[in-house]
Each structure stands twice: as C-alpha cells, then as structure tokens.
C-alpha cells in the first residue's frame, strides 16, 4: 500500500488514529496514522449490531419475566455465565440460577453487591434494566 492510499475513512474510534504500514515516495516503509478504513468499520459495526440485537432480545425476556435483570447486565458487558462466574467468584451453575427472575428476586443483598461491583454500578441499579444501554460511539472527526 502506498502512503497516499492510506485510508482516512470515518470510523468508530473517535479521534483515535491507528498505525498502518505503507510505502512512501522513496519506496521506504513508514508507520502512517489512519483514522479508519470503511471495510473494517463495516465489520466492527456488524459486531456491535449483533451485541445490541441480543441486548434487546434479553430486555424483552426480562420484561416478560423469564429472565432476571442480571441477565441483561451480563449481556451488556458481553459476558456469558462462565465469564461472569469468574469475576464474581461463584460457580457457573449458581450464576445460571441467578439469571432466573424467580431466584434473583430473593437474592441476598451481599450477593447483589458483588454482582454490582463487577459491573461498576450501584446495587439498587442491578435490579433494573436501564432504557439506554449507554453504548454510544463517536464517529471520528466530529
């Protein structure tokens, strides 16, 4: 790739530029900063689209009383029961149980606090599903 061909397309990374290796006019390689490349952004957007879709599906299940709000927070942080179990220091099957709305309602405050600490939220917030997942990305050069 030639230096003048290094793409500077709008990406999702805000004002951050990443290094791309490209050949300058003298035929030597240089590390050239790049704002983004459209095909790469397409792939990244697609990954987020999928995460947001899953999040909305879980929200509906929580509203229907099938899953606990914990399931939404887990999904919001791109975790599965295994990973969350590692962070909260419980066994996987206990985390799976806590994803049930019925079990979660009777969950002890101490355990709620441990979950909340993993997500960096207040223990009271754990029992609610916020309207806005708080996943906003800045397109660059805004």
């Amino acid at each position, binding site marked *: *790739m030639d230096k003048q061909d290094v793409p500077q397309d709008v*990406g*999702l*990374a*805000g004002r*951050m*530029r*990443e*290094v*791309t*290796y*490209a*050949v300058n006019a003298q035929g*030597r*390689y240089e*590390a050239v*900063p*790049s704002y983004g*490349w*459209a*095909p*790469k952004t*397409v*792939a*990244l957007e*697609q*990954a*987020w689209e*999928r995460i947001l879709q899953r999040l909305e599906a879980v929200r509906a299940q929580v509203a229907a009383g099938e899953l606990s709000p914990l399931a939404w927070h887990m999904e919001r*942080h*791109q*975790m599965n029961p*295994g*990973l969350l179990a*590692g*962070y909260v220091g419980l066994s996987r099957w206990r985390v799976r149980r806590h994803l049930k709305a019925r079990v979660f309602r009777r969950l002890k405050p101490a355990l709620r606090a441990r979950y909340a600490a993993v997500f960096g939220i207040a223990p009271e917030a754990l029992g609610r599903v916020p309207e806005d997942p708080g*996943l*906003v*990305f*800045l397109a660059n050069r805004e």
Partner: protein
Amino acid sequence: MEIAFQHRQSAHCESGVAANLLSHHGVGLSEALAFGIGAGLFFAYLPFIRLNQLPLTTYRIATGGILRRVTRRLGVGLRMVCYRRPARAMADLDARLAQGLPVGCQTGGYWLPYFPPAYRFHFNMHNLVVYGRDGDDYLVSDPIFETPVRCARADLERARFSRGALAPRGRMYFVERTPSAPDLRKAVVDGIREVCRIMTRTPVCLIGVRGIRLLASRLEGWPARLGAERTRLHLGQLIRMQEEIGTGGGGFRFMYAAFLQEAAGVLEKPALLGFAERMTAVGDQWRLFAAAGARNCKGRATAADDFPAMAARLRHCADLEEGLFRELEAAVAADSRALRARGQGAGTRPAG
C-alpha cells in the same frame, strides 16, 4: 514518579511493547524489526476455536510468542511474573517502578478506561508499558495510542486480573539483563527462517499457506452451508481478525514487508528489498479480499465479489505467499550457515 520512557506509537501491542521496552534498555529496535525477529507472521484457520461463537482465524502467532522469541534471540533477560493476589501484583509493580524499571503488563482490554468504547471487547492479550505513577494514576505507554495515557490504579488492577480465556493473572515483565553486543544479524536470519518454515512446511492443514487454502474452500461453501445471515457474520469476523486494531493493515503483511526492508539493511542483502515488494503485493491482495468481503456484508456485492471469486483471491494469496517464503528461505540459507559456522568457530575449532 516518572521514568524517562520514549513512547512510540505502534500498530500492534506486543511488537510495540517489545520494541519500546528493549529500546529503553539500549537495544534499539523498530516495531517491524521486533515483529520480524519475533517471527510474528502467521496464518491459521481454527474453526473449532470459537470467538463470539464464530471461527477463529489468526494472522499472527500465539500471544506472548513475539516477546519470548525477540528476547531469546537477542539474549535479553526478561523476567516474567504472574500473581494470585492483586494487592501483591500492584505492590510489586510499584516496587519495580521505584527501581526505575519500566514494566510491561498483560491486560484485558475491556477494562481499560481510555480505550474507545467501540473497541472494548473481552480480549485478554493486550500489552502495555507502565512507566510511572502520579498519585492514584499510572502513566501508561500503550503502544497502539498516539500519546501516553493515564490509568487509575483500580482500573489497571482490574485489567491485570481480567478473567476468561488466556487470563493474564497479573502477568508483568521487565528487562533484567541486556547483552553487551546483541547479534542482530543472527536474530534476523533466525526470525525469517522460522516464519518461512511455519508458513510452508507445517504438517497441519489448518496452518500456514495450507490453512489459507483450506479457508478458501470452506468460504466457498459458507452461503450454502450457513445461510445468508451466518455467512455475513463469519465474513465480518474474518475481516476484523485481518484488519482491526493491531495488524498494521493486510493481516500484518505490510508490517512484515517493512521488516524485510529493514532486514535488507541489517544483513546488507539488497535482494531482500525485492521480497519486501512482493510481500507488499500480497498485503494488497489481502486488502482487496477484505474490501470484497465488506461489500458482501453490506449487501453491496458486485458480480466480481461472489464467493468463488473471493476464494480464488485467497488461493492467489496462498500461492504468492508459498512462492515468496520458499524463495526467501533459500535466500537466507547461506547467511544462516555462515553465521552458524562463525558462532561455532569462535571457541571449538582448532587453529590452523
């Protein structure tokens, strides 16, 4: 407290940390040189390992490998430590900083607050250098960022003890010994030979140029086997592995071309410049493949972007890389023999 540490932005975190850390200790290296000596270039299609429930494709060797090989080949003593208790890990980090040593840390990118939100995924192999502390903030040289950043103590601790696959367990490393006269020529030749060997002669069909060909034939079957939506996801993941953060473009191929250019200077071997140009051409082919893939993801594919055409482009990449690495191996074989003879001759060969 702040150590005078030169931050240089890099494409890839591991090669960047290796180059910056070693340069700090007087073994001056560019990122590309560290990547080449560390034999970072690779290809593997590993459909049985799932990332976000999609097959893993990798364009670089297993994490940690670059750092390990660079330090071994240059004779740098790197001490690597893991921890069970976070408090101990942070105390040790402080102690090393107090000794004036910049410390490399393996972290989980998800928990680093300075990451752009769109890049925050659970990824446990992110390397950075801590070079100072200002109250509750650590001064961090994260090689993929343009300038040094700050990270609060609690956030760094959490990132160092992220969970999941390949959890870092507080892993940190620092340079203990540096060689008086590192043998750069031998390191470069050994790095080149290792990449040539892995890419062309690994007896496993998932790895090297055979892996690229396997991916080509699997990719051709995706639309029939997976349906439109899953195919889109598989393609997207493939493009991300190839182009997203840390590859320097074209699945590390451009960075490797930059390395070959530098290697030509180190070995005083202008023939390597021709190989660098060919490597660039391979990188360009990979870029075209990614662009076609993205058009498919977007539903904007033209007739030239169909799956047989994309598979053909992958096979073309495989052919180019196979020819390149076979000839490259032959080109450095003589240097390798000469360096080996010189190394042995130093002590064992009788005079006369």
